[in-house]
């Protein structure tokens, strides 16, 4: 559905997107992850035909974004990061305007606007001026205008920013429902969001792709970590721990009272666990807690991004 090939975008001398390639299948939800200034918005602006790439090509729904831009634009819904809306319009007038300009026949305009207001929970504010509604509702109007007329491809730049937890849940459900019928690209900083929503993630940093994978694979690939709480002499425990085979490193962790906390990075999970157990029995330390730590996408993210910089 979306094919991006060797995409490069330069702002003057500055290269914001550097030779990026990826494809998105029909019905897939692709997460776009990266720190500030990574180039997420820039890629999305190219895909939505706001500006052309410096080099490379982008094909959306079978049409080239640069040569056949009108055909691409007929098939996409776009939520820009800043959610720019006409402040002087009422919510329902605005959505009717967007529906009409995206080609809905005059008879259908009202129905389509009403449907999308319903889907995005905007019925309460439909008669308010956009300048007078809250930030969360603004965000919803932005999503609603992207969804109006059921586009094949949705490009959402940080869709859940500024929403309260209940709204975030609702919007995520809405996006989830879109999968299958629509192809979605969304960018975000919120990592759990990616594991919840996306079938696949692309992590980019400084305009380059750092990793492409399913969210759960990214998690298993990275090293396992274990939290230990042990009573006893700190130095001794630390020394003994570092001798255990199958362990990559040991870090001190805050703990209360006599208990000492450690975070152990395991190289080989089984060997490390058995080694630790044997070590504790041998030294007669008192084990208070021992559990594997959930690898968060934050860790992977930071690891991938810092690895790139090193």
């Amino acid at each position: 559905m979306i094919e991006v090939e060797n995409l490069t975008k330069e702002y003057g001398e500055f290269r914001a997107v550097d030779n990026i390639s990826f494809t998105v299948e029909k019905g897939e939800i692709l997460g776009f992850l990266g720190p500030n200034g990574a180039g997420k918005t820039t890629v999305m602006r190219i895909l939505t035909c706001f500006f052309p790439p410096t080099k490379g090509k982008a094909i959306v729904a079978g049409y080239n974004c640069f040569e056949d831009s009108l055909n691409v634009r007929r098939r996409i819904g776009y939520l820009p990061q800043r959610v720019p809306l006409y402040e002087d319009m009422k919510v329902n007038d605005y959505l009717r305007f967007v529906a009409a300009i995206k080609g809905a026949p005059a008879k259908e305009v009202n129905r389509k606007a009403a449907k999308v207001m319903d889907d995005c929970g905007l019925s309460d504010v439909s008669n308010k001026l956009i300048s007078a509604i809250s930030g969360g509702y603004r965000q919803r109007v932005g999503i609603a205008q992207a969804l109006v007329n059921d586009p094949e491809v949705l490009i959402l730049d940080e869709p859940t920013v500024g929403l309260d937890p209940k709204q975030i849940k609702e919007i995520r459900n809405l996006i989830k429902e879109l999968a299958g019928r629509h192809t979605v690209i969304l960018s975000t900083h919120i990592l759990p969001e990616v594991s919840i929503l996306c079938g696949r993630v692309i992590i980019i940093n400084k305009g380059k792709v750092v990793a492409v994978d399913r969210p759960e694979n990214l998690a298993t690939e990275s090293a396992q970590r274990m939290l230990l709480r042990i009573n006893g002499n700190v130095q001794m425990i630390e020394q003994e721990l570092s001798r255990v085979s199958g362990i990559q490193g040991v870090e001190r962790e805050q703990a209360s009272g006599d208990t000492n906390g450690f975070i152990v990075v395991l190289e080989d999970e089984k060997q490390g666990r058995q080694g630790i157990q044997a070590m504790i029995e041998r030294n007669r330390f008192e084990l208070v807690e021992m559990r594997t730590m959930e690898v968060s996408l934050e860790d992977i993210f930071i690891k991938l991004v810092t690895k790139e910089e090193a």
Partner: protein
Amino acid sequence: MNIRNVGLILNRELKSYVSSFTVYIVIIMFLLMTGYFFYNLTATFSIVSYQAQSDPMLAKQYQLLNINETVIRPLFGTIGIILLLMTPLLTMRLLAEEKKTGTIELLLTFPINDVDVVLGKYLACLVVVLTMILLTVTYSILLVTFGEPEVVPIGTGYLGLVLLGASAISLGLFTSSLTENQIVSASISFAMLFFFWLISYSAPLVSAGMGRFLSYLSINEHIESMSKGVVDSEDIIYYLCFIVLFLFLTLRSLETKRWR
């Protein structure tokens, strides 16, 4: 070009004008200024006419007693200049505001051609300016009711005003496409409109041929002959070229936005 899309943009822009404060201020200022000149011109004319009844010398100066020459022609000239002062205030927001607030990002990714955007915005502003010109028709109605002016020069004078206004909007739309700052847009518009107004002032300083050319370039010269009742195809062509040129430049300027 797609008529429906032009209509949609036009409609949205008009609603936005109607809900904005600026438009009302501009219309009120326009009516105050033109009304003031209208009052002065008619008051002077009636005093002169009154004196002419007792002064045979004055009565022989037909020029002074011709309402077309002493009221209508200067009135159209003045309305034209006030129009040039007012249009940049109406055009400045057309594209600059969209760039400032970022709405241009959605506008340019909607499935419509740039031409539709440009024409829709242009026509919306034209509707406002036509309304302003229409409001000054009251002055002419007063003149026709209480005096005996020739009617043809009034009609052609209005044609001239409409063309002048339409040209100023085209230029203003172009300057609005150059920047995201409305004040900058208005300033460039003022500068360019004054240039096209005053360019004929240097006509006496250069050779006759060059002088005629400079006068031809001047945006006001053409309304002059029209308010005398003469419609020359040269004048119409001048305004039409002016309008098309700046609409075209606006379009190019939007296209280069896409390139950055």
